[in-house]
């Protein structure tokens, strides 16, 4: 596949809450040697249904096939793919900074404020900064803080996303299924 045709796609996968589904979902990526960029798994708003938010670089042709192959798994309820403009997207970043350096250099606090990040814990040794946003913002803050040499640890979460459309496809689908019995 030509690299320049690739885009970052987000897959929203809904499954029954049974053991081993994650394995089956990731196996679909592994088989095609597509790297998962980020992955978030949690209970969804529907009781008993888990939601997976997966991002991966792909072209549309391939991501359609991946979505279909995932949805084919018996205990997967739905698998749909989206581009960024179809979703509200958030990620979180956590930055552990050395408190003495933060106190020494006021520019560090200014940077934190400029990015609208928040300081959630301070003690004499370290300061924890948290930020919610899209990938680029979270990385930018890291890069900015890193230039001060004050970052002790940094981590970024997987993406979580909700669709911009009005429909809740999954609950409708499940309702239809229950009615079809």
């Amino acid at each position, binding site marked *: 596949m030509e690299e320049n045709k690739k885009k970052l796609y987000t897959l929203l996968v809904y499954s029954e809450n049974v053991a081993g589904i994650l*394995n089956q979902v990731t*196996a679909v990526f592994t088989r095609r040697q597509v790297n998962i960029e980020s992955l978030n798994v949690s209970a969804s708003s529907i009781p008993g249904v888990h939601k997976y938010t997966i991002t991966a670089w792909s072209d549309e042709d391939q991501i359609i096939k991946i979505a279909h*192959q995932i949805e084919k798994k018996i*205990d997967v309820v739905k698998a749909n793919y989206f581009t960024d403009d179809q979703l509200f997207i958030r990620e979180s970043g956590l930055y552990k900074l050395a408190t003495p350096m933060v106190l020494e250099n006021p520019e560090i606090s200014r940077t934190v404020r400029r990015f609208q990040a928040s300081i959630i814990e301070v003690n004499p040794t370290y300061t924890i900064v948290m930020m919610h946003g899209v990938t680029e913002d979270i990385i930018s803050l890291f890069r900015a803080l890193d230039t001060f040499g004050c970052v002790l640890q940094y981590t970024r979460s997987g993406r979580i996303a909700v669709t911009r459309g009005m429909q809740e496809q999954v609950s409708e689908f499940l309702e239809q299924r229950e009615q079809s019995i």
Partner: protein
Amino acid sequence: MRALQAEGVKTIFGYPGGSIMPVYDALFDYTRGQKKCFDHILVRHEQGATHAAEGYARVSGEVGVALVTSGPGVTNTLTGVADAMLDSTPIVVIAGQVPIGALGTDAFQEVDLVGVSQPISKWSYQIRHAEDVAWAVSRAFYIARTGRPGPVVLDFAKNAQIEEIDWEPCKVDFVRSYVPYPKLDMEAVRQAAELINHAKKPLALVGQGVELGNAHQELVRFLEKADIPAGRTMLGLSALPSTHPLNVGMLGMHGNYAPNLKEQECDVLIAIGMRFSDRVTGNLKTYAKQAKIIHLDIDRSEIDKCVKTDVAVVADCKESLPAITELLQKADHQAWRDSFKPLMEKERTKVIEPAIHPKEGPLLMGEVVHAVAEQAPDNAILVTDVGQNQLFATRYFKYHHKRSICTSGGLGTMGYGMPAAIGATFAAPDRTVCCFMGDGGFQMCIEELGTIMEQKAPVKMILMNNHYLGNVRQWQDMFWLRRKSFTKMMNPDYAMIAKGYGIPYLALTERKDLAAAIRQMLTTDGPFILECAIMEEDNVLPMTPPGMDIDKMMLEI
């Protein structure tokens, strides 16, 4: 036992071992005396159990069952599971597992079965407690047989086999996350019918989906109403009788010349229950680019997977075919149909005649298959192994009856033939089962001769011995500068092997004895081995070299 009984299981192919002993102990009572409701066929290797279950399923249309122990018992079945997955064959493999308390401790004969079988099965589940049994077994059979069929693996922990509970029957016929039969989209049906009604040169590609959907009559009505010539995939060979006037032959790499060339000329291509395997399409970049593509399949993930579709009708073809037929205008495409004839004739003179009626030289596979097909009853079942034997057998056998072919299409599993043939004899005891094998594949599951001996399974084994792994040898000759790297094989004395197993045997070397030898094989009760001394370096033709455009089919080398 009661869960299996509830699913209508009659025949179980299996091999006992430590972790499945409680089930086998119960089976003892259910296979004899007053409680008898199953036949258990003791195979000689667990791979054989799965292939036998596949052969059983392919011929009967019911779910085949394999019962094995944990660890090596079940890893031996994985080839059969993968085979059943690629060829959409409904089987349920029930395997023992160590007690749940011992899981993850590297206990004796422990293997992470769910982990290893997930990517190659339709569903894979661990039964951890006795109260799960009724639900899991019912769900397994439901998933295996519905929608696009496939293999299901049950990993049955030993503690769950022993625990005593009050039996509560459970019937699973709904899984909310699984839609086996998608609702027919009438708009797609209308679009498909419109394309076909405007077609001047329609061509249908018939796959195993028609057999699995039991849509044989629906197919014939569809083809006849719009006068559409039809090619069949290897797995779909008995979906349409060989003698039907609209049947234009087999598709693919070693299929017939006319349909392969016409795929590149037709204006509307209607794929019915087939998945555009690379062995059918050749080079996808050039495949049927001139045609509008209609794809009928029960599995949505097959749509656009290999070939971009203009109209997709996602449904059971038992439902979609009549719906489309309803909207079709009666048509006559005689000129188009006639245009197949010169190509068929060309193949007949250049390839078929020399293959089935050679004048001199050693015996050829083609003539052996042809001669068997001439004498076998119309409802005979063809079972093949994999390789040249498979390609000659599928090309030259005749199909009159539905569910008449068992062959490993997708996975291409050598060793499949003999055990699958055993399964076929249990699925249809009144039909003749002809199993063509090469000397390579015959030896890959040769241990199943023991099962044939014990069960007196009436498998007519035609061993086409050319002392080569013939298909690989052919490729070496064609694409690897004739460097025959490890394809020549030293063979045992098959007469002595047959004698050891007490199976009637005949060696055939002379062309003049061919008809009589086949008569003897077919009229002998029970199993028979007919070893044919085949020309060593014959090639299967025609052939589209792998990855080439499908119409670049070679009639000679």
